[in-house]
């Protein structure tokens, strides 16, 4: 899998941001410190990314924002993936009435418009810190994953070895944990990655909508603050460009990993790579 350059680049970017989130705030300086001498300044040697209208260093904020955004992303992914496993795997494994009920629930969450729903819930729940935001994102974002896991568990549980062990009287719990789940690790980790990126994006969206408590720092709250202070209309581009770029980079990294994994698992896509096509043409013309 690491042979694919797409996977390698994607993973490098993701690792970089994870390291930034973990260690960045130690070296990044205080994101909340106000430098009254430097208000709304363009990038300079003093402030590499410029300053906000409150005289805060944008670089320090971007680094601190990495922790805020990634934290919500990872938490949301953990919650979403857990629910997806709890709903999807039993539905596919047991089938019948269990499946009917759980599948209905999954489909219900699939068709519900998630963003407005989150807005309404967040509107009633006042004061939303990163944990509540992650909880809400996870609670409403599991349905796609559950559908995939259901389909996979369904095909696994009809395989001969699982059927045979069922007939021998192996307990369901043991079968699910020792036979079904280990076969799904690939799917689950892809889903986790997907959930994390989705979480980062959703957090940014929610922060932009003003739902996140503005005391916490994340890429989303940075863009939201810039928007609130009309940074666009005053030309303070350095305020909202870096956090947006960071989100875009993480998203691209995840897409690259997904693409690379797809190419490894689907030979049809592998045959369509440019390197293969160009090499074939060269041989054909020679």
């Amino acid at each position: 899998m690491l042979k694919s350059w797409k996977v390698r680049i994607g993973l490098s970017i993701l690792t970089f941001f994870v390291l930034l989130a973990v260690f960045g705030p130690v070296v990044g300086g205080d994101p909340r410190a106000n430098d009254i001498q430097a208000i709304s300044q363009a990038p300079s040697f003093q402030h590499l990314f410029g300053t906000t209208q409150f005289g805060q260093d944008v670089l320090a904020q971007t680094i601190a924002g990495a922790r805020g955004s990634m934290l919500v992303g990872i938490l949301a992914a953990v919650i979403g993936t857990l629910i997806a496993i709890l709903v999807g795997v039993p539905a596919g494994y047991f089938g019948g009435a269990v499946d009917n009920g759980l599948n209905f629930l999954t489909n219900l969450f699939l068709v519900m418009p998630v963003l407005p729903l989150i807005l309404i819930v967040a509107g009633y729940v006042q004061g939303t810190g990163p944990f509540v935001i992650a909880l809400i994102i996870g609670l409403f974002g599991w349905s796609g994953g559950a559908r995939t896991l259901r389909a996979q568990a369904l095909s696994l549980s009809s395989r001969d070895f699982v059927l045979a062990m069922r007939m021998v009287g192996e307990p369901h719990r043991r079968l699910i944990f020792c036979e079904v789940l280990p076969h799904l690790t690939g799917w689950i980790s892809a889903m986790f990655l997907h959930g994390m990126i989705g979480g980062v994006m959703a957090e940014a969206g929610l922060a932009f909508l003003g739902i996140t408590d503005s005391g916490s720092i994340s890429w989303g709250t940075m863009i939201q603050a810039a928007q609130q202070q009309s940074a666009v209309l005053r030309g303070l581009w350095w305020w909202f460009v870096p956090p947006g770029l960071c989100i875009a980079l993480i998203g691209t990294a995840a897409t690259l990993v997904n693409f690379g994994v797809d190419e490894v698992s689907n030979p049809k896509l592998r045959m369509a790579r440019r390197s293969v096509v160009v090499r074939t043409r060269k041989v054909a013309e020679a």
Partner: protein
Amino acid sequence: MSVLTVEGLTVEYVTGDRPVRACDDVSFELRRGEILGVAGESGSGKSTLITALTRLQRPPAVTTAGRIEFHGTDLVGLAPDQLRKLRWTSLAIVLQSAMDALNPVMRVGAQFVDVLRTHDKTLNSKAAWARAAELLGMVGISADRVRAYPHELSGGMRQRASIALALACGPELVVMDEPTTAVDVVMQRQILAQVLRLRKELGFAVVFVTHDLSLLLELADRIAIMYGGRIVEIGTAESLYTKPRHPYTRGLRDSFPPLRSELRTLTGIPGSPPDLRDPPPGCAFHPRCPDRFDGCDQQRPGLVTIEDHAVACRLYPSGDDQS
């Protein structure tokens, strides 16, 4: 008079560090109305041969050498629009699984109509649909099924429909890729009988590719045996069955139950087909060969014609062994 002459056909897959040669120096000739069977295990290069013959290969497969002459025209160098005119009117194909070969979202009849009208611009829609129904009738499918979707037909019907489809524009040559593997034995017999009957009526030639040698013994006029991308033995069906010369052909014959003669003891061929990414030196069959002797792992034998058929094995020396 020969319809098709293949000479030195070589196809390579350009993946990884070095090209994989899936068809190596393949030559044969096909006469009008003749059925040539091509038999081999999976990985013997027979599927590659089909896509190369019909010029349907896609990257990373490339024809690196050889000629495919159809009535004197070399298909290898032919421009795409020239080739398109020859397709189906002269050269048609039946694929292994009709379920996959028919467009699932188009009515069966419509898949006849589009090819009929592409190659005959004067045909109107109504006449084309009537002709589609007629073609289906030819293989014993009732005319009202012309408006059915592929999934609404039974497996055997689909397979017969795709044979009828191949004959829609009156081709001289039909390439068939294991068209009977997806159906049961009874249906298989029916389809083969139908192919033989239609060949008699319409006079097309067939290249019939399969892994099942016993089936070819029933059907084919001549048989070519492929191993490791090369033809190792080629001759009339009868002489190949009664006097197989290549140890591989013998092994292949003895690993299938005969369809009509008395039972023999079945023996398989030990070992597995060669890895084409890293083919064995010398004769590709030598690691599995019961009759190998000194030099088989170094010298690659060429085809030698003995009486009524040709074989590539060092048991029959020709003097021009390639090393």
